[in-house]
């Protein structure tokens, strides 16, 4: 895998360098909010990357992936509330419970296909969402405030914004690397083969169900870890994190960034956030000459541009941003 100097690789390299430099820049400009902002992007990028394993490579459109963010988050929140604030306890629990739930959902859902698969993953996600809404002891719909970040016995201080940022960044890089290795291994070949033609794969002799279930569990576990990070980041967890519209957001990040590509989901996460910040500015700047002061009010409605943008991406840029960069149309 020699890294050629293609436009796409250059962009990815620059992106990673910029991400690594964020805390330094923030320290220089005394703007701590930048670190907060990009920590969130990185965590969501990690969640989207985990989804890409099953969605982009595996062709399994899970509309309930955000539920693992919630499971991981509640693992941290509930344990913290009950007095177990050690990260060594919280984070393994987050990963384990997420993996077990993914095992359950996968075992029951992976026998279905197409829209039925989408709906059944959605059903399970909503089950957990409503379960969270019913958790009277842990805030129910109002959510749970997490008093202290996960403690790591002095090895790491997660309350230090910079340390936490680099930890998240490291975990993101490990995730991307792990999934890239998985995908390029025999395991990954089976998954991708099963996406194009499951029957043929089984005819050759691969127990595709087992492979796909494993991928499903891995994706869920990684997302559970992302959930634990997210809960630490916001200091708050509520069932809203698991709502089906959040799963929709993750799917958008994967497709917008580029399915079946290593860095695509991260690009999608960055792009989505950049669009949220840049579109209003763009609208205001371009409408100003014509509409003057009204341009500020017009900029508030930026989502009116974002929505059709998704449709256009679906219709004309199926490979997402990564696809555009690589100059290859996947379909």
């Amino acid at each position: 895998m020699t890294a050629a100097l293609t436009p796409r690789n250059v962009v990815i390299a620059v992106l990673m360098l910029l991400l690594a430099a964020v805390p330094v820049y923030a320290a220089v400009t005394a703007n701590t909010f930048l670190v907060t902002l990009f920590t969130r992007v990185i965590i969501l990028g990690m969640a989207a990357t985990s989804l890409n394993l099953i969605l982009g490579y595996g062709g399994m459109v899970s509309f309930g992936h955000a539920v693992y963010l919630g499971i991981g988050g509640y693992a941290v929140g509930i344990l913290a509330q009950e007095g177990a604030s050690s990260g060594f306890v919280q984070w393994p629990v987050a990963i384990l419970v997420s993996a077990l739930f993914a095992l359950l959902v996968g075992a029951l859902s992976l026998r279905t296909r197409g829209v039925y698969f989408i709906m059944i993953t959605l059903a399970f996600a909503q089950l957990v969402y409503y379960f969270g809404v019913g958790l009277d002891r842990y805030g129910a719909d109002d959510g749970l405030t997490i008093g202290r970040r996960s403690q790591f016995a002095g090895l790491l201080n997660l309350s230090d914004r910079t340390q936490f940022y680099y930890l998240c960044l490291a975990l993101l890089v490990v995730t991307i690397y792990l999934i890239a290795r998985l995908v390029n291994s025999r395991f990954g070949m089976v998954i991708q083969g099963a996406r194009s033609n499951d029957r043929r794969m089984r005819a050759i002799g691969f127990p595709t169900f087992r492979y796909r279930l494993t991928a499903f569990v891995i994706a869920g576990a990684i997302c559970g870890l992302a959930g634990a990070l997210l809960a630490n980041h916001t200091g708050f967890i509520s069932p809203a994190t698991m709502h089906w519209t959040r799963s929709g957001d993750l799917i958008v990040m994967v497709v917008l960034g580029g399915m079946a590509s290593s860095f695509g989901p991260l690009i999608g996460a960055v792009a989505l956030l950049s669009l949220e910040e840049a579109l209003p500015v763009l609208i205001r700047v371009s409408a100003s000459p014509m509409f003057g002061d009204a341009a500020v009010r017009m900029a508030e409605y930026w989502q009116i541009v974002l929505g059709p943008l998704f449709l256009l991406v679906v219709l004309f840029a199926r490979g997402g941003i990564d696809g555009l960069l690589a100059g290859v149309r996947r379909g």
Partner: protein
Amino acid sequence: MKRLLMGTVALVALGAAPVGAQQSVKIGFVSTFSGPTAVIGNDMRNSFELALDHLGRKMAGKPVEVIYEDDQQKPEVGVQKTQKLVESDKVDFVIGYIWSNVLLASLKPVVDSQTFLISANAGPSQIAGEQCSPFFFSTSWQNDQTPQAMGTYMTQKGVKTAFLIGPNYAAGKDMLTGVRTTFKGQVIGEELTKWPDQLDFSTELSKVRAARPEAVFVFYPGAAGVQFLTQYAQSGLKGQIPLYTAFTIDAITLPLQKDLALGVPGAQEWVNDLPNDANKKFVADFRAKHKNYPSFYGAQSYDAANFANSAVVAVNGDLSKKDAMRAEMRKANYASVRGPYKYGNNQFPIQNFYLQDVVKDAEGNFTLKTVTTIVKDSQDQFHEKCPMKW
């Protein structure tokens, strides 16, 4: 891009100036500006702006800058917007918060950064008790107080059995608990409904009809209050079983509830006809500018502005003197539109509660009128759980 640009400009312009030497007073205002309850947020914003206009838009000679943020009635959005105000905009005060669940989620970032939070509405029991903070002040009430006043009134009226209905979130639970504290009759039914999604109360109203209580107590702020009264009338219960309310009938919902609200009493710490000078000026100028009456949400926001001002004036604009500001704030030394009041150890008001009734004014509009004082100098029941003493 924008942040990169602004970051560079800020660096060049300010050099290494300490935070406290800002040239203006920055206030972050968190409320709901979208969705059906946006009307409440707008009422609060209009009242806050009116107060700033009355102050000449300056506090202790420094210009005031307000950043309004929309919490979309969701705790997770509220906490994010609050974090942005505190970390990115570096405001000196965070004011607002309609909803108790949003406030509970957003409290930590504010007090951790040693910024003052003035709640102009929400008053959850947790913040009045164990989670009290020297950086938190309320210009409204503690959630239980208003329904407690109503519970007292219901007892005075000789009600023997009651059915309680409210939304299932922090404030709703507080409200129903509050009534139970002072109502001496028997509570024969209690229903908490899904909030804010559930606007169809047919299930609960059917239960009321079956239980046949002497009275019903209800708490539904905003649009839900309109729907509840409408459905109460549609189900035929209006006129059969009297209704007692808290925060369900106010200047915002009344124009939509109209006749349905006649004869339905409510309790409040402020009614628009309270006879003090500050209130007369507030209501008159508000009506002149916006045509309708201000609500209690607005009155509390108007007070919050003047309250913050009293603190800024006391330290002559030097906002780094937090302890001095707090000392002044604890005196409640400003002209509140509800009249003079004091602060308890948990920095919640000790104040009177009045009975409000619905009447028509000279121009034929529906409005509220003070009937009597239900309770004087009421203090919330959680102050003893608060470890602060001063």
